[in-house]
């Protein structure tokens, strides 16, 4: 499980340039760290690195807006 967490945080770090280890509840859209482009990259990376295939329409911004929520979603999907 910790593996998922570190991988997701790694992906987010690549995308936004920030380390969220201590800010798991930061809202990625409110702080404009993630936009539609970044979101798609995130989905593709999740697919490549973790084998989670989330289609674009699965992606509800209110459910995927913090690192903690993304980690939970990925763990659910696995």
């Amino acid at each position, binding site marked *: 499980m910790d593996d998922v967490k570190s991988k997701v945080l790694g992906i987010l770090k690549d995308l936004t340039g920030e380390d969220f280890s201590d800010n798991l509840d930061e809202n990625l859209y409110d702080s404009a760290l993630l*936009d*539609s*482009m970044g*979101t*798609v*990259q995130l*989905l*593709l990376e999740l697919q490549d690195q973790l084998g989670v295939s989330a*289609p*674009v*329409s*699965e*992606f509800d911004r209110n459910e995927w807006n913090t690192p903690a929520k993304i980690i939970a979603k990925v763990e659910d999907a696995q």
Partner: protein
Amino acid sequence: MRWYIPYGNPTYFLWLGLALIPLMIGLLYGHRFRGYQTLISLLFLVLTFGGPNWKTGISLIGYLIYQVLLVAAYSHYRQPKGSANRGWVFVLAVILAIVPLVIVKITPAVEGGRQSIIGFLGISYITFKVVQTIMETRDGMIKTFHPVLFGQFLLFFPTISSGPIDRYRRFLADYQKVPEQAAYLDMVQKGVRYIFQGFVYKFILAYFFGSILMPQIEMQAILAHGLSWSIVGYMYVYSMDLFFDFAGYSLFAVGISYLMGIKTPMNFNQPFKSKNIKDFWNRWHMTLSFWFRDYIFMRLVFFCMKHKIFKSRTTTANVCYVINMLIMGFWHGETWFYITYGLYHGFAMVINDAWLRFKKKHQAVIPHNKLTEALAIFITFNVVCFSFLIFSGFLNTLFFAPKPF
């Protein structure tokens, strides 16, 4: 008997208020009278598509049958467990879904302004709902197809003529439940406030800008023969009219939905205080721009990145911005000014992104304070108003249309 365009005049609101009372009492006491809701929906659809508009009513019925059959067929293909998911079947389904709209949009352009006989008020907005349903069915997010519920979604009368564009799963969740009493009372309170705000926007402010100021400044601009400051005046007046008219309509549609216990999403969020063009599209005609974002832009980006069509992320984003906005331009209509409007916004997004990258790189030297924010809002406002001047078609009237004298 009289016939009405939705929210067009005070009598329409009077009928609406009377018709909604029984439904509201039901909702307040924990019941949604589905049969009654269907009945008044049909009644208000008849008020809009009946009488002198009966031909468009027939078109609407034909269109509805066509789309329900289409989505039923695609759902039948895609929804069973372990079903096939071929790309071409999906593409074919989407093409078939937009064919009627394409015909309606192209007919005036090739037949000298004559409207297609299969058109009706609100066809573009229903088409958005159909297409997104097909896409989410493909993604496996919509797992069951129910023709009556789908019909309720497509024909939800408060939003039928011009949106806001709701989402099937979201709408269905609201439609199938009754809110708690306290939550419903809160919705009623908000709904009433939106409707009154809509009155101020549409019948006072849009009337002032659109029916009082606009004809005067239009005349001045035409009499000036060529470039004049009146065109600049027209640009601002038109922009204000467009906003208050459309935001006013949207407030009515959202307000009435709330009274019916349906949380139709908001369409505007103070767009004129946007700090950049991206911010603007997150605040202006939001259900349309989010539709384009979710069903065109993101899918296009996904496709391009997955198949590594472009080397860089920036190129991918830029190409997709322009295509996305260009499609939006074509959606508005097949005239040079709508298409230019789309391209203009596509390139505005490209420039905006380039600026944001530049700013991030030179964070240390580029100042950021209240003054620069005000400047950003001022620039965005003018970029947007200029796009509305293009959109208005007034430049076409001034410089390209045949002169009447």
